[in-house]
């Protein structure tokens, strides 16, 4: 309690912020229904710069969409490393800004950082982007949300499969972790459903933001004859621009990169965090209980496809639209056996299928047949 007293005392010194400050600081102490009508304080934490044309920007755009709701106070902080810094950033938002709901958006923020801070602030909700929350293991005021962006990657793969002439696709990836491998596999499986001869060559750069390596990887892939390039790094800008410069097709990731490649852009997989964040804001203002786990793909509106580029053929569009519709109505299952990995081992037997929500898929450590590359560093 002492913490809040001191906090309030300091606040009286602040011009203007007085009323809001008192209300939000007290808000944290009262049961949820009492602060339903008050200002909702939401805090966002990004691991990189807000405007990276990629992952962090997608969240920043989501946060910015809250500006039109005048009963929401949204604050954010960029470049917060996955160290004790993020623990303190969360606490600082709670203690100094009266934030009641925190959104740490980087994967590495969850364990141990959120798990350590959350029990100290039982009236604050911690919603982590990444979908790791487990009712059995984790505190009640922690939750997670994540989008099945691999659905949108699959649709991009369909387009890529139609548009590739050489039958060689390129994928520039940061590191061989499950989220990334799943995107590579979806992209490849989709393209091979169009043309079974297609291969995807993967280059791992070893880091989330290494523009020179990404450009070099793009150039060497293009030298090897690939004609559609996509990526999973924090900021796809360099990859998309290099593809455009070399005159090949590209598929975007994280945000809409169409403007970077007016000639060769096909489509892309995008997050739609605005929806998630606005939904959460509504829930808090109405005082409804916030679900601990929010996930979804196209159907739930968490991910979208970037608008098709000019060059995309009518047939490719038609197939891609159809695929998106099957994801929407839930009839599409990507991981349906038989599926082999790229060493020839059968990873999913015939007749077996793993639905989108299956937790098994989140530990993916293999590359599908048709991918040229290795998961071993």
């Amino acid at each position, binding site marked *: 309690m*002492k*913490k809040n007293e*001191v*906090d309030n005392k*300091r606040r009286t*010194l*602040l011009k203007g912020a007085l009323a809001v400050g008192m209300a939000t600081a007290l808000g944290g102490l009262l049961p949820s229904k009492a602060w339903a009508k008050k200002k909702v304080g939401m*805090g966002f934490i990004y691991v990189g*710069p807000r405007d990276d044309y990629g992952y962090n920007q997608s969240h920043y755009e989501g946060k910015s969409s809250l500006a039109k709701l005048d009963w929401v106070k949204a*604050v*954010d*902080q*960029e*470049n*917060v*490393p*996955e*160290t*004790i*810094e993020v623990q*303190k*950033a969360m*606490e*600082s*938002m709670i*203690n*100094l*800004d009266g934030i009641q709901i925190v959104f740490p958006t980087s*994967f*590495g923020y969850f364990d*141990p950082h959120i798990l350590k801070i959350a029990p*100290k602030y039982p009236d604050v909700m911690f919603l982590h982007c*990444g979908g790791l929350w487990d009712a059995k293991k984790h505190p009640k005021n922690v939750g997670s949300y994540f989008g099945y962006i691999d659905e949108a990657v699959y649709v991009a793969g369909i387009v890529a499969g139609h548009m590739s002439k050489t039958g060689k696709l390129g994928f520039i990836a940061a*590191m*061989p*972790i*499950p*989220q990334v491998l799943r995107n590579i596999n979806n992209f490849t499986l989709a393209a091979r459903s169009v043309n079974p001869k297609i291969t995807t060559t993967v280059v791992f750069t*070893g880091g989330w933001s290494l523009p020179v390596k990404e450009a070099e990887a793009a150039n060497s892939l293009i030298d090897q004859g690939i004609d559609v390039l996509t990526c999973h790094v924090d900021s796809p800008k360099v990859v998309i621009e290099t593809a455009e410069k070399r005159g090949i097709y590209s598929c975007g990731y994280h945000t809409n990169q169409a403007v970077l490649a007016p000639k060769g852009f096909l489509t892309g997989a995008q997050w739609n965090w605005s929806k998630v964040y606005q939904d959460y804001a509504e829930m808090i203002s109405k005082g409804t209980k916030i679900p601990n786990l929010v996930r979804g793909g196209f159907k739930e509106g968490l991910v979208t496809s970037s608008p098709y580029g000019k060059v995309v053929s009518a047939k490719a569009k038609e197939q891609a639209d159809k695929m998106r519709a099957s994801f929407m109505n839930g009839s599409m299952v990507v991981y349906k056996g038989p599926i082999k990995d790229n060493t020839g081992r059968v990873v999913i037997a015939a007749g077996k299928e793993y639905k989108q929500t299956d937790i098994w898929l*989140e*530990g993916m*450590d293999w590359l599908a047949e048709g991918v040229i590359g290795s998961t*071993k*560093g």
Partner: protein
Amino acid sequence: MMGRLFEPIVIPFAALLVALLLFGIFITAAGADALGVFESMYRGAFGTWFSWQNTLVRAAPLMLTALCTALPARIGLIIIGGEGAVVVGGMTAALTGIVLTHASPIIVLTAMAFMGMTTGGLWIAAISALRHYRGVNETISSLLLNYIAIAIMNFLVFGPLRDPETLNKPSTYHIGEANMLTEMGSTSIHWGFGLGVIACVALWVLMRHTPFGFAVDITGGNMRAAKLSGLPVARLMIITSLLAGAAAGLAGMIEVAAVHGRANSSLNANYGYEGILVAFIARHNPLAIIPVAILFGGIRASSGLLQRDHDLPDASSLVLQGIIFIVILASETLYGRFSWLRAKEKTV
């Protein structure tokens, strides 16, 4: 007395004020409200007990990495390899913790600290040995070794030492919850801060009040004279670097034992590089490192508030650190120019 203390206290404070003034001008030019920014900085760094804890916990690794630059600098070596020593120290500490995970926590922690300090120490000692026996420039070799340490860690964490349970952030296995370093009393400051203060004080005593420290300072002042007077220069250099690297290795061990519980790429969090700054601003005095590290911890702690309340980018704290560093360096030249004060004192 007054004259002796005048310079080391007044000059840094005046420099700090000048730096804050320059920063104020800069952010005013960038369109921010400078007074409001300073208010927020104070509030975020020292304004409440929460802010104080936030500041102190950030100062903890900086004290130890600063020692990694400060001690060798006293003997005349400019080493910027703290980052690498943190990484290798954290790596071996984590491995020790994993191997011993079922032993009693006190044994695990002691062994982890010992291993972290030993590897960190050898890492930096190798640099000064190369300097002494092969004439390899220690600044450059320590820089190169940072990159090498990080590459080795990534290789191990992604490959042979990876806990397959750590899906999207590859890490080693956990050292065990029971073996984690706890927080000091009822605060939220982990024991790393206490260890940092103890290390700074102990090394200050060693450097300022023992024959060893005296020999180090003589060597740093004039290596040739030290050699001629029969001091064991090589041994002094290597022992100093061993201690320096041990401090940084301990910082790595603390990161693992107090924060992450595992070793992973978060060990490479630039504490080593920030420590260089702290060391130079503290003029390589282990005792002065404590307040300087707290000041820098405070700058980092208030960075979030500047972003949230004033819409300033994260880089503003880099700019502020850069300005402080430059002004403090420029103020170095003022030392010794106030000797008239001392002269006056004598005549009184």
